[in-house]
């Protein structure tokens, strides 16, 4: 084998490896973008749910005690720090269930003026928390799997991005709203 051939073969191998690594890195980069978007939409869904619950609490369509329960839970969720966030959002889900699963809650609310629209908004907000959290956690597990690959770890393909964390809360909707 001549030395030119050896150089050629080595050269081809280097190019192929480089192409493969850059493809892997590109794929990981794409996953990071997707994860960021999923996180954004989860944040937006949670914010929307808090806002709708606060609006319901302030609507004067409910009795004062119920309003207070909802307002307190939504406020806790809004002011929670990153450490307590999962707890506070779970508590909001529980408060919402306690309220919305009262007998004839939906009927009564939809009979009052503006109540039906608010109820629909609440349904949508609750469902979107469930959806966006599933999609976010899905993105987390896919990204984790890609970051855990040998190549990605050795070459630090993920750069300085943090290892993604699942968002675990109780987001079960009230029984009457559940579509699942």
């Amino acid at each position, binding site marked *: 084998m001549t030395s030119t051939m050896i150089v050629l073969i080595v050269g081809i191998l280097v190019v192929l490896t480089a192409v493969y690594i850059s493809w892997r890195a590109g794929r990981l980069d794409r996953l990071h973008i997707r994860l960021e978007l999923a996180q954004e939409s989860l944040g937006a869904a949670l914010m929307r749910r808090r806002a709708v619950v606060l609006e319901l609490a302030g609507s004067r369509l409910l009795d004062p005690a119920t309003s207070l329960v909802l307002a307190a839970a939504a406020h806790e969720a809004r002011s929670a720090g990153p450490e307590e966030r999962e707890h506070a959002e779970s508590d909001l889900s529980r408060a919402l269930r306690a309220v919305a699963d009262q007998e004839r809650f939906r009927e009564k609310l939809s009979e009052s003026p503006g109540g039906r629209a608010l109820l629909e908004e609440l349904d949508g907000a609750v469902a979107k928390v469930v959806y966006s959290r599933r999609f976010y956690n899905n993105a987390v597990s*896919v990204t984790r799997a890609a970051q855990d690959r040998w190549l990605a770890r050795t070459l630090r393909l993920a750069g300085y991005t943090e290892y993604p964390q699942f968002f675990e809360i109780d987001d079960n909707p009230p029984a009457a709203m559940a*579509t699942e």
Partner: protein
Amino acid sequence: MRVGIVCPYTWDVPGGVKQHIDDLAQALIAQEHEVSVIAPAADDDELPPYVTGAGRAIPVPYNGSVARMSFGFLSAARVRRWVRTGGFDVLHIHEPLIPSLGVLACWAAKGPIVATFHASFSRSRAIAVAEPLLRSALEKLSGRIAVSDAARKSLVEQFGGDTVLIPNGVTVARYTEAEPLDGWGPDGATLGFLGRMDEERKGLPILLDAFRTLAAERPGVKLLIAGPGDEKDVFERVPKELRDRVTVLGMVSEADKIRAYHSVDVFVAPNTRGESFGIVLAEAMASGATVLASDIPAFRKVLGDGQAGALFANRDPASLAREAAALLDAPERRAKLAAEALVAVRKYDWSTVARDVVRVYETVTTSGAGRVEEDL
């Protein structure tokens, strides 16, 4: 919202997935979304205005059965063009693990992509071999929907991650009006069953046992059975003297199925288990039939704990016979249950299901996500 929907199976052959897509598209259009569906179809096929053909489908054996699907350069180019020119806010791919237009669309597009998984699949060699390829396609999905627990379970077991569950819908309006089958009609003494006759969990043997008791006491009572399977299995379980009071229709067309629902006084759903969501139950309710169902959790939920239909103790023919007799004796109660059922079934109407699907679209199309674009 501009929605692009990808159908993996040929448009001119009836099937569950195709029907699902057509119902979804129409419900979305009714809610004033713009919809474009791409499906395998020959250029001279007659298609609804919202469907684009992606070339003739080819029958291929895949995963144990023969399916008519589209693939190859021509289809790939057409899918790519459709994605490029569509200007979609969201792309909705059905069955992205099937080697058909779904996979092609996954390759050709980027941006907000949602996928619906219909079939449950077992760990097959085909999937194991193709896994790296399928995995990279799955990585592009921003949202995943499963239509049943079984579909969700097999996806999660094979590929990990999570999905949301949005069950199939029923187009209620399609069922509400129909003529009873010729020679049939609610006469106060007709029971009905629809489903596979030879599948234990559909519970037909329990109904037949109950019918024996019931028919011995009541000379007028008849039983109408529709669904695939062998009628011999049915008649073997019925004593000779009662056989002329049992009619087996076998497989029926969609139109005759609806007429069958309208031909009975009490529609019986004796399913013993499973049924994350009883589509047959919902169809019967939409047809205005009085329903008598086993008290498995799924049915209990659909029937609002007996508000919208009567329940009997699961796997208990004696309980079934008792409840059926009580219903046959009480026409007013039957009418009341049927009326309640029409209200309860609205929750399963396609308009409601489509609203949930739109919520998924809205979840993945947050401000930063952009539109669907061609992936070069």
